[in-house]
Structure formats: C-alpha cells, structure tokens
C-alpha cells in the first residue's frame, strides 16, 4: 500500500493545489481536457475538482473505451452471443451498454451464454476448457488493451484452437483527438494525456497536438498527486510560453512506447478504413481489425453479423460530452431519462464515463458550478 499512499499524500496535494492556484491568472479560465476515462474516474473519486481554483476547468474527454462503442456493434455482439453453441466473453463494463435491441445483460437473461472475464486470456482459457463450445471474446479498448488481445491471438494460433474467436473493436487514440481538435469552437486549451495508452504508444505519439494544433500535452499517471502535478506542468508551459509534450508518468511511459506491445498489435491487427464512434460519427482509420493470417479467429468473418448503423437516441448528447462541448448535466436527459441504472447514452454506463462519474460522485457540485463559481 506504500506505493499508493505516496501518490495520495494530503500534504503534498495541498501544496500542489497552492502551486496551481499561483500559476493561474485570476478570472482567466484554462480548460484542461483529461483524455482518459481512468483520469475522469480518479478526479471524481478523490474529489480533485475541489482542490482546484475556479480558473482551472476540467473537461472530460473521449478516453472511456466502453463509451465510444456504437450501438450497432453491441447488437452484433448480441447476435454472436445468441448463436447456438457460442459463449461470448467480455469485460464486465460492456454487459450493461445498451445497443439497439437491449444490452448483453438482457441477452443473457434471455438465455445467451455471456460471461464476464478480466482478460482475453481468460476467454482463451474458457475455450480450452470447454472444447464443445465456441468462445468469442468481445474485444474493446484503445491501444491499452490491444496488446493483450494480440498476445491472446498469437497464443490461440500456437495452440491451434479452433473454437476461439475475437470480435475486434479496438480503437486508436489519435483519430478522436484529431476530431476533437478540429471541432469548430473548440473549448479545450490543454490536454492531460492518457497514461496506460501512452505506455504502449509512447509520449511522442502526441506531438501532433502541440505541433499542429498548438495545445500543450502532459502525459499523466492515475494517482491524484500525478494529476495535480500534470495540471501544474501544463500551467507552467503556458507561463513559460512553451507548447510541447511533457511526460509526468516517466516511471512507466517512454517517448517511443513499448516496442514489443506495438509489434504484437502490428502482427495481428491492421487499421480499418473507418469505424463508427459513439457520439463522434465515422472516423477514418480509427480502429483495428484482425489481419488476414488470423482470419480463422475473426468473429467478423465467422459470424453473419447484422452490422447495422443505429442512430443514437435523439436526446443523447454523448458526442458533445465526449468532445468537451457540454458538461454532463447540460444534457437534457442527464439524471432523468439517463441514469447509471437505465443508461440512454454510453457515457452513463462505465464508471469511467463522464456522465456516470459525474452522476455517481459529483452531482452535488452542480449548483456551485451553475452559479458560476466553477466556470
């Protein structure tokens, strides 16, 4: 526990908060987007916003892997799960994501064999243990989780398993960031770069943000102290007139990333022409699919999938939340037609989703912010 305590030291947090307060110009709001859902969760879980001066406004970005999966893909996963003799394995958070015709949890209640796993290797193990069933892993996530899927595929091939497949929904971090940066009327001044994704792709991968879009980036770890430090680093860049990628998470992230993880991804997966993102629309070259040599493990080739594009519900403003244009509570259905119990949009499902994090942890602060204290 020592390790974590060091990054949650209240005295250190207070001194960082004071430093941050000294780095802002009164009345001049700096909007900082934390790209990663893990950061969003940590910010709310530790009540970090209360430690920040009103001049620092946190905007929650698109980095919650569950939140960006479009409804049509959920329906495809349900179709796989409802195939005779098939077990669909996935992360717990995916079970409640609503598709066009309900969630995987509802499919499970109708009799589909859906199982929660903690890693794709667990799904592979399931396939090995139950040779009479076909086990399909519903893979989601950014470059963070893609290496584990890649290693699982390599292992499945080495073991010559014929009852295992992957429904690949891995997405890439750069395209949605570009989409956000190109949003007209962009309301983000600086970025906290994701930690886990960066341990794979490296901090250099974000250089396009300062170089092409003139916004500073600090790649950050997940503990509250890390986040406060990263915010201070961003503010200092502004004061110094610098605009670059800095790395706060040096204990894990290298500029070049993790070559072995990248090689495993490259061996098993390739970019798709385009992929539909929940709330962001269709983004070119924004996701991965399995390469030809792994066709035998590719659920998209093994199963007849509906592959429908399903419009997000009219009332759903997840896209604007994901791009930082509105705060969760500005969505008309927030907390009424859309709650963690009955999510309408994906941002309300995972605890890393901006709406769910805000609803579960922070909704008390809304009056304060509406009164103008936080904006």
């Amino acid at each position, binding site marked *: 526990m020592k390790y974590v305590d060091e990054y949650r030291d209240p005295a250190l947090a207070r001194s960082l908060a004071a430093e941050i307060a000294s780095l802002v110009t009164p009345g001049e709001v700096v909007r900082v987007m934390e790209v990663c859902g893990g950061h969003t969760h940590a910010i709310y879980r530790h009540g970090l916003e209360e430690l920040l001066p009103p001049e620092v406004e946190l905007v929650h970005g698109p980095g919650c892997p569950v939140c960006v999966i479009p409804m049509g893909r959920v329906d495809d996963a349900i179709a796989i799960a409802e195939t005779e003799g098939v077990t669909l394995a996935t992360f717990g958070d995916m079970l409640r994501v609503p598709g066009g015709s309900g969630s995987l949890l509802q499919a499970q209640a109708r009799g589909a064999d859906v199982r929660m796993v903690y890693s794709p290797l667990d799904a592979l193990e399931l396939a090995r243990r139950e040779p009479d069933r076909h086990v399909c892993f519903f893979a989601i996530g950014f470059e963070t989780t893609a290496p584990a899927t890649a290693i699982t595929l390599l292992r499945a091939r080495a073991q010559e398993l014929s009852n295992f497949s992957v429904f690949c929904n891995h997405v890439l971090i750069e395209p949605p960031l570009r989409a956000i940066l190109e949003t007209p009327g962009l309301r983000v001044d600086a970025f906290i770069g994701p930690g886990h994704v960066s341990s794979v792709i490296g901090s250099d991968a974000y250089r396009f943000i300062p170089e092409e879009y003139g916004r500073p980036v600090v790649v950050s770890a997940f503990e509250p102290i890390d986040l406060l430090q990263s915010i201070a680093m961003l503010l200092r860049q502004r004061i110094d007139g610098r605009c670059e990628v800095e790395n706060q998470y040096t204990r894990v992230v290298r500029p070049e990333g993790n070559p072995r993880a990248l090689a495993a991804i490259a061996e098993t997966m390739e970019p798709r022409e385009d992929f539909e993102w929940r709330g962001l629309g269709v983004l070119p070259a924004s996701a991965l699919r399995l390469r030809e040599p792994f066709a035998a493990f590719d659920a998209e080739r093994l199963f007849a999938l509906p592959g429908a594009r399903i419009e997000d519900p009219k009332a759903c403003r997840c896209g604007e939340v994901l791009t930082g244009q509105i705060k969760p509570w500005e969505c008309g259905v927030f907390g009424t037609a859309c709650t963690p119990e009955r999510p309408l949009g994906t941002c309300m499902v995972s605890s890393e989703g901006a709406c769910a994090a805000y609803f579960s942890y922070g909704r*008390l602060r809304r009056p304060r912010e509406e009164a103008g204290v936080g904006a």
Partner: protein
Amino acid sequence: MPEPRTRRVLVRDKRITLTHGAGGKATRDLVEALFLDAFGNDALAPLGDSAVVSLPPGRVAVTTDSYVVRPLAFPGGDIGELAVNGTVNDLAVAGARPLWLTAGFVLEEGLPIDELRAIVTSMASAAGHVGVAVAAGDTKVVERGKADGLYVTTAGVGVLEHDVVLGPERVHPGDRVVLSGTLADHGVAVLIARGDLRLEGDIQSDTAPVHELAAALLGLGEGLRWMRDPTRGGLATALNELAAQSGLAVRLREDALPIEPAVAAACEILGIDPLYVANEGKLVAVVAPDVAAEALARLRAHPLGAEAVEIGAVEPEPEGMVLLDTALGGSRIVDLLVGDPLPRIC
C-alpha cells in the same frame, strides 16, 4: 451437546445422489448421520414437522437469509459458518439475543459427502460458539449443474430483552457513525479464493458473530440509534439505506476508514471500491454524540472490536445522501452501486 444415541448411523456413499433427496431411507440416514449428529439438541432431536420451543419474555425478532457462495470454503471460513454468523448478525443488529436457527440445504447431486460434513460441522461449531440451537432443518437434492455444490438458507429467532427502539427514525443530525473494524475483508478474500483473478494474497474472511458487540452497544440505552451489519453491498449500501430512510445525510471521512493494507491493495488492482465490498463480521452503528467515546470503548473492549473507529457523522443535508471527505481534501458522493460488477460473493 449431542445426546448419546444407541444407534449410530453411517453414511457409506461418498457423494450426494438424488436418492438422498427422495425422502426414503437414504434421506433419513443422511439427516441422522450428518445433521442430527452435528446439531443434536432437544428441539431438533424429535425430528418432528416443527420444532416446538418456549420463548422467553420480550419482543421477538425473526429473520431469514440464503447463502450462495463459490468456493464453498475460503480463507477464514466456509458457507456453513457464514450461514450461521450471517443470520445471528441480522438478529443481533436488530437488538435481539439470537436463540434459534433453522437451516434448509439445497444439495447438488455429486457433492462429496465429506465436504458436506465439514460444512455442517463448522455450522455446528459456529452455532455452539454463539449459543444458538439449530432447531429445525430440511434438505433437498437437485440434479447436477443446478446448484453450486450447495445452498443454505437459515432463518433465525431472537428475543429483545430491553426497550431500546432502534431505527433510522431515531437518527438525528450530529449523531456519530462508528464501525467495529476493517472493511472489505470477506468480499476480497472470496474473490481471491475463486482463483479467476490470478491474484494471491493472505486475506482472510472476517466472518464472525457480532452479537456480543451489539449487546455491548445496547448497554448505551437511548444513545444507541441504529445498527447494521454491512454485508452485501458493503458499508456504502448500508449507509445509503440509512440516509434514504432517515432523510438525512451521512458524511464519512476517508482517512478514518480502516482497511487492511493487503485488502486495499487488492481493491486498487481490481478497481473496486472497498466501501461496496461485503463484510461478514462487522457492525456499523449510529450513536448520540455524547456517547460516541463510550461506544468506541465498549467495542474496543471486545477482541472483534479492537479496531473500532468513528468514521463519520450524520448531517441534516443533502437529504438522503452519503458523502465522503476524501483524504486529499476533496469530497464526493458515495452512491448506491448500480449493477453488479463483482462476482457473487455472499
């Protein structure tokens, strides 16, 4: 103590078969050899359709709970001990002295008899430890694959030998929240024992009867407002129910919450909040501010309450909410858990 019996019945089968549930001789042999032998007491011994008991004076508390847990045995306990302690605790936090239990078993065909015997034995010793009698029981056998080895349902009867009325309506702003010991031990121990997580750690379930802790607090009289054993859903769920029912708020202090370092580390790795993880031998109580120190002293005088602490206070608003002042100096809501991200553990 078991009555000395003239005829000792032996069960020769190694595993439970459907015959054991058919109601014939095999059923009777199983009941006599395993259950009667372990639980033997005056109420159970006649094996009638009902146990007949005489209640001492006082209000009566009645409760029931079903226990489904995988694996059946885990570090620190097993389903049998859990089923006794859980029901004892439900009675205890209602302010009752636990007197009788009943136990219903749903056995899965193929369950090794030795495993069943071990569970029944640990139930008997847990009951003996508390001084409750298992007065009635039942067994059913279901086909292989229809149960995770075995399920137990226990019901309990206890008697309230005082006039203290406990409940959310007696809770007032300014009251203090006290907790008898560390959080999340049971849930994390079971999660790790399941072996799905490839996590190892020497974490023991906290399963224990809290009846003596509850009795110690009852001695505070009117100063004791409300008690719960925060099992499934953890402390967060128990306090959310209190907040909702009382229309008040509960504010917790994160730095006061007692959590074993190994448990905290496991929760961190798994991304689970220990506030939502089950406890099976803890008691949380709301007491008047002027008796808070006395409440802690009473809890700490008992080995199960040695680490008792005050973890927060009741506030008038925001109505129906549980809040947490984080160690870092921020605050957040501690909401009701939605969905069930945890595997079944209690």
